[in-house]
């Protein structure tokens, strides 16, 4: 591994290009993860391959590896979140990074500090990555434009735009059960109009050759949705026919108040996923997903949500940590590696094997960090 270290130029701010005759171990040249729309299929495969490696680490009694020791990751959440924030926090901690939750409620943001001022402050503190969630679409782009290559930005959900890490973990969960999503029929059900999860999933699944369908009330489907790359339905039964995967979306209570649907009860009647629908129309081994948090009895019934034979919902949560470890490692694991004291053992090529070998070495040295 010593020779692989030499590939990294000291002080390089971006991951190095693979050089020499060795096959490139990774297809990753991004500083930020801003959307799923512009990820390449190769990049997606790289993230999933890394995530598989980290998933193994998560099964161990000692989960910590020192890959991001000395790195600082800030969770900058302008919207409430349980699983995404916790998942990012754990992912950073398992990688030995220092993760800080920047709480908007108690910070200067409350005093009127602008986004760019907050970003400037954080950068001055020498952080390596920002995980941003914001109610406004495009905020991760604004941050990335401000930071350039100095700080990595990970989009953890921006308005109705995208939630790329969710779509990556959804894909990862599907691939645990299905060999490949190519040619598989994936049906996304519900409020697509307001859903960043739906948008990211449509982009990603299309890249990998899935047959993507969307179904929901006409008032909750955005204009020109088909042009994003999916077949649009307004009736649940034909949409579910021969489905391999059914992905439910959360229905916000506010949608009724703003006149988009008459009532939650009617929505459940027309579009709710229940055992009857799930067992009648899709393929026999259909998989059920939900990004959470669920409105049980509205978009999904408990009998299927809690059935481990069909439901991937808890797998999604577990996958989330592995995916976020993979992304954090890909984005900031290779930066300034040589400058970090005490990490000489680390290969800078970042291949998944290096990661495992390193974890082995740590364990054998009894070095719980």
């Amino acid at each position: 591994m010593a020779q692989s270290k030499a590939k990294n130029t000291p002080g390089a701010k971006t991951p190095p290009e693979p050089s020499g005759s060795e096959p490139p171990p990774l297809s990753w040249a991004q500083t930020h993860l801003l959307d799923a729309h512009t990820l390449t299929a190769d990049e997606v495969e790289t993230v999933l391959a890394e995530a598989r490696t980290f998933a193994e680490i998560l099964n161990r009694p000692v989960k910590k590896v020192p890959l991001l020791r000395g790195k600082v990751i800030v969770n900058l959440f302008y919207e409430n979140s349980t699983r995404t924030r916790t998942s990012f926090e754990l992912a950073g901690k398992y990688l030995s990074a220092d993760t800080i939750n920047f709480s908007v409620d108690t910070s200067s943001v409350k005093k009127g500090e602008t986004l760019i001022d907050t970003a400037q402050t954080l950068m001055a503190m020498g952080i390596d990555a920002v995980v941003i969630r914001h109610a406004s679409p495009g905020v991760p782009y604004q941050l990335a434009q401000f930071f350039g290559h100095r700080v990595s930005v990970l989009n953890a959900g921006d308005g109705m735009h995208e939630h790329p890490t969710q779509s990556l973990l959804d894909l990862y969960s599907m691939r645990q059960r299905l060999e490949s999503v190519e040619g598989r029929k994936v049906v996304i059900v519900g409020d697509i109009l307001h859903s960043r999860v739906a948008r990211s999933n449509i982009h990603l699944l299309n890249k990998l050759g899935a047959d993507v369908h969307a179904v929901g009330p006409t008032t909750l489907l955005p204009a020109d949705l088909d042009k994003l790359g999916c077949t649009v339905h307004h009736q649940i039964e034909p949409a579910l026919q021969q489905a391999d995967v059914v992905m439910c979306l959360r229905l916000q209570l506010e949608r009724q108040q703003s006149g988009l649907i008459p009532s939650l009860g009617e929505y459940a009647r027309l579009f709710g996923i229940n055992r009857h629908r799930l067992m009648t129309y899709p393929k026999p081994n259909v998989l059920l997903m939900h990004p959470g948090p669920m409105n049980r009895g509205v978009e999904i019934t408990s009998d299927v949500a809690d059935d481990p034979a069909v439901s991937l919902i808890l797998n999604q949560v577990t996958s989330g940590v592995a995916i976020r470890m993979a992304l954090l490692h890909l984005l900031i694991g290779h930066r300034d590696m040589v400058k970090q004291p005490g990490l000489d053992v680390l290969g800078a090529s970042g291949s998944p094997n290096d990661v495992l070998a390193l974890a082995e070495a740590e364990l054998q040295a009894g070095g719980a960090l």
Partner: protein
Amino acid sequence: MSSMVLTGGRVIDPQNNLDAVADVLVQDGRVTQVGKGLKAKADAVIELQPHHWVCPGLIDGRVNFGDPGYSDRETIRTGAASAAVGGITTAILMPTTKPVIDNVATLEYVWATVRRDSAVRLEVLAAATKNLEGVELTEMGKLTANGVVGFGDDTAPIANTLIMRRLLEYAQMLDKPVVVHPQDPYFSGAGIMNEGYYATLLGIPGIPAVGESLMIARDLQLLKRFGGRLHVARVTTAESVRLLRRAKYDGLAVTAETTAHHLCFTQADMQRYDSDFKVQPPLRTDDDQQALIEGLADGTIDSIVSDHTPHNPDEKSRPIDQSPYGAIGTETLLGALMTRLLQDDALTPTTLIKALTQNPARCYALADRGHLSPGALADVTVIDSTAQWVVDPLQFKSAARNCPFKGQTLTGQAVLTLVGGAVVYRHPTLSEAPAPVVMG
């Protein structure tokens, strides 16, 4: 100085059907003669080349100069200076100030500031309803007596059909146009950009195009039934152009304008989440843009405005859904339009100049401007039709920087701006001349 001749340039005066190399003689603030061999008649001579177009001074039908109330964005002094650089000799101020220009006292303040600070002629569109609320009419008679050119609530649509009827009726008595912003307020809601593929892709709330044309359809029906004069501001959709074409065919007293940015950009330009492209109405599709150009070519759309809307950088750097609408445009108006519309012969130079001179003058009944007939005000813009320049907002005379054309290379630029025969702007490349009277 009492007389000056512009010699050797290509004179484009659409109202007089003139497009030829000729001399323009101005005396005591008025145009006195256009023709050959006038050089000897003047005290001062400005030598030009045939690539210099000598046009009636440009009339920008829609600007916001921030005063009163928003001097952190722009002032009448900086706004007028930016207009002069852009070759604009008359600009029409919108009433969306703080306080709103909906009463004579505020109007008097604006006139006083204009007299003191403005390098160019500024006219005022007064609010049609008090505080732009769409409920009570302003004192339109008093405002007319104090020199406003028309009435309109700028970006606030007149939602109430009955109020719209009253406006048309009352303004008709005063022989002033009612200027409407055609956007259904319920439809636009929280919308930010044109509803469609890009809004869906970008997760940005959409404003459907039909929200514009259905308001135009309503107002045309009212116009047909109750009379008056209607000017439709900022037309942006293909369907709106179709409705207006039909209305003009039917002989209704309607005029219409579009903006430079709607002719140069589309919804796809929102992809960078750059709020300098967040304008009202939103940028539309390629098809809409093509329809606007066709509308200009066949006279359905009369005029093109800059819709100069300054904001300070703090406001514009907010997230896309929290930043204010609007872009500045006085200094890029001419270059942007010449680059976009003339290079691929979408419009002839005469049609373009007409939309920037003769037509806006007619919309607002400014009979002494927009042409170079003897006796007209000596407001003249000389354009270097070959000048290439890169848009750098930091060099602008405008105090604001929210310019979507930033970084673009444009072809065509004002090099000399005369207001009442006085030089208010002169580009350094245009040498030797009488001592310029630089204002602003």
